[in-house]
């Protein structure tokens, strides 16, 4: 192919931006789609930092130990090729970000500073105050702007992805998307497409996720034949501030910098994590901390003020150091709760935070099972297994973009016939299908309330599909999703406008969210073991004989079809997972 490869990237968070930079560098012309201006993507919510085993603190840290911590933290469910490459790429990635001008915190010698995070005993997390995600996305956004100014990248911000364009052979040849202003679907040709569209937190109603984390794009291509893997692995972060509109994350870095979790017991503070896990203390991995907080609150009835909350305390630490290292997080607590955490302990509770599961991609290129379609960042299932370690998400997003960007360009260069040479009929038909779908959705009538259905979904998913799972509850939850699928066509879209109609967009997203929700319920129902974030009191042990396997979900109109793909533990062999 003589002309420049045409790459479409959907999603302007860290993974999408990094993929755009790498693809541009490899000589491609990139169209970058995002439902919000890239600077406002959910990556901004990451607070604590990014992992890289640079070993600047004389602790004997190394990428191999980082790799081992990642696999062990993920309870051995992660496929090992990409996480190993990621751990080794970590130091280079942090140095690259440093060169891009990220204002990381520094040591007195002027080197990058590193702090502690959960699931490791090493100072491995580089950080920029406590708004690291924001700082990293700004740096990548700026680099993409440079490529944009040079004419290599065209941004389509405030556009909603609707579906992939598949040719007669089933290969991905472009996308259909619509601007959120006019809502008129358009088809775009591409030699390869990268989805970096984030996680599906909104399926749970309230979570720590941003409002655009619907998982809709992944759900849409899943309905078109893309395999969705490990859907049941949903991380519930131990420390968030519950809210009506969303739960607000209080970063793990708060504990990394010395914050302590406690509840009053017999009139005295009880530091239950430190007592039970003397080696890791408050820095046990998230799945374990969350379950422990649940036990203390729900089983022992020791929640602060009799409510579902525990203390997260930094009031014993030096206030000015705490402000310098954790300012951004403390500010959020102050603004939304009206109390100063350096003086009074914060009140927190676990909240849905991250999906380890996502679109299935291969171990080399982050390629989905649909030729020409790639998935990166939280949207794919790689790296984190059954539980993600803190500060590995920023790393996996950026590393992922570095993997799939060049891979997509290479794939495009190998195509016998580029998308530009295809007959326009396939694109016209794809666009017409989406126009028709919009018309159908707008014509819906009935007594159901679109937003009410979403609340019902969130309530049921939070109740049955989070920290403690029972088969009966999971069956109930899937039946609930099926019921919502049946009722959605009777939910009138309350907005009739042809400009900025957010209800139409949400109605379309709901359809895809329900498909993913059902895969989450079914995957969890069928996995009769406990592993990482997936915990069933009726099956309390990890079962490597039957379930050291990736859950592979394929879509069908009557619900997901599930089978399993064994996980080969090439480097790190399974061992019991203990942090005490």
């Amino acid at each position: 192919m003589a002309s420049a490869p045409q790459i479409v990237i959907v999603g302007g968070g860290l993974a999408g931006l990094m993929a755009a930079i790498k693809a541009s560098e490899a000589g491609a012309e990139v169209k970058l789609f995002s439902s919000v201006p890239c600077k406002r993507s959910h990556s901004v919510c990451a607070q604590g930092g990014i992992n890289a085993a640079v070993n600047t603190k004389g602790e004997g840290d190394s990428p191999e130990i980082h790799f081992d911590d990642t696999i062990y933290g993920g309870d051995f469910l992660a496929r090992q090729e990409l996480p190993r490459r990621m751990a080794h790429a970590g130091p280079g990635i942090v140095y690259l970000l440093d060169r891009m001008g990220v204002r990381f915190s520094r040591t007195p010698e002027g080197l990058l500073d590193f702090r502690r995070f959960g699931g490791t005993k090493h100072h491995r997390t580089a950080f920029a105050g406590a708004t690291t995600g924001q700082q990293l996305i700004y740096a990548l956004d700026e680099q993409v702007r440079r490529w944009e100014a040079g004419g290599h990248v065209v941004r389509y911000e405030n556009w909603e992805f609707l579906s992939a364009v598949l040719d007669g052979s089933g290969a991905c040849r472009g996308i259909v998307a619509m601007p959120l202003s006019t809502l008129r679907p358009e088809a775009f040709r591409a030699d390869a497409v990268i989805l970096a569209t984030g996680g599906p937190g909104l399926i749970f109603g309230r979570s720590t996720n941003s409002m655009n984390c619907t998982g809709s794009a992944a759900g849409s291509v899943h309905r078109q034949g893309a395999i969705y893997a490990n859907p049941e692995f949903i991380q519930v972060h131990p420390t968030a501030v519950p809210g009506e509109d969303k739960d607000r994350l209080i970063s793990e870095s708060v504990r990394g910098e010395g914050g302590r979790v406690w509840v009053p017991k017999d009139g005295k503070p009880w530091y239950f994590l430190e007592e039970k896990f003397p080696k890791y203390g408050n820095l046990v991995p998230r799945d374990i901390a969350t379950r422990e907080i649940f036990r203390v609150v729900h089983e022992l009835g020791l929640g602060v003020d009799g409510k579902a909350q525990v203390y997260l305390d930094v009031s014993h630490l030096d206030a000015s150091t705490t402000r310098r290292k954790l300012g951004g997080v403390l500010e959020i607590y102050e603004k939304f709760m009206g109390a100063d955490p350096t003086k009074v302990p914060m009140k927190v509770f676990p909240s849905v935070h991250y999906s380890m599961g996502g679109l299935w991609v291969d171990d080399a290129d982050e390629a989905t099972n649909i030729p020409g379609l790639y998935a990166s960042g939280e949207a794919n299932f790689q790296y984190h297994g059954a539980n993600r370690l803190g500060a590995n998400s920023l790393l996996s997003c950026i590393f992922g973009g570095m993997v799939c960007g060049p891979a997509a360009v290479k794939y495009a260069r190998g195509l016998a016939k580029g998308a530009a040479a295809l007959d326009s009929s396939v694109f016209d038909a794809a666009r017409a299908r989406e126009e028709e779908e919009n018309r159908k959705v707008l014509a819906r009538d009935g007594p159901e309330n679109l937003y009410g259905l979403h609340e019902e979904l969130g309530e049921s998913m939070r109740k049955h599909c989070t920290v403690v799972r029972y088969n009966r509850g999971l069956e109930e939850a899937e039946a609930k999703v099926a019921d919502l699928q049946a009722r959605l066509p009777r939910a009138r879209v309350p907005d009739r406008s042809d400009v900025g109609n957010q209800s139409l967009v949400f109605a379309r997203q709901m359809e895809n969210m329900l498909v993913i929700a059902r895969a989450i319920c079914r995957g969890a129902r069928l996995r009769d073991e406990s592993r990482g974030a997936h915990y069933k009191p009726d099956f309390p042990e990890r079962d490597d004989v039957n379930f050291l396997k990736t859950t592979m979900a394929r879509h069908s109109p009557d619900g997901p079809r599930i089978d399993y793909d064994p996980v080969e533990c090439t480097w790190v062999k399974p061992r019991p997972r203990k942090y005490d």
Partner: protein
Amino acid sequence: MSDRTVVLRIKRQERPGSAPYWQEFEVPLQPAMNVIAALQAARKLARTRDGKTVDPVTWESNCLEEVCGACTMIVNGKVRQACSALVEHLPQPVTLEPMTKFPVVRDLCVDRSSMFENLKKVKAWIPIDGTYDIGPGPRMGDDEAQEGYILSRCMSCGCCVEVCPQVNDRSDFMGPAVMSQVVLFNSHPTGRLNRHERLDAVMGPGGIQDCGKAQNCVRACPKEIPLTESLVRLARESTLHALRDLLRK
């Protein structure tokens, strides 16, 4: 359960260029409720206070933690992020209006793409050689890093642009946020290497000479970025830059 409610008085607009109109919505007050949660409740209702079924209000929001900048609007006359505007602290009715310095798309949703275009004009990036693994960036003291960090928290939300009297129909002033970004990049050891390109950009139309020193920007910034300091620094830098150019001629 409290039977207290919150009344939202919202300035609406159907489409770009159409005439604005006002509507009132009333929703139950929840504990620690912010303006976004109130808007969500009103959206579910899709009914005005006087019982008329209407199209739900359109607004922008994403992170709801005041780090993304999306939900910026005018709340009771003051431009700010709606997510961190707690209803209990606001006199009622709570008045919501779209920002006035950007074109309205619909209702509370405006088009702020000019802010990003301006970042492009002033080359607000570090021109790295490539993304290859060639080791760390320049060494830097923590104080210097922290100084940059403060400027680098700008969300491009547009609050400073909204309150700046110099941003108006008769001026092309790019606004305080973009100027402050120039200071950020010009102060970075690598960014400094091409500071003249950025200074050229801010000495052209819409640049630093359009600042009227009203100092509204620094008061409006939700991230407490010392914008006036940045503006003064940039004015000084660009004067020196101009002198240098003059002497070279």
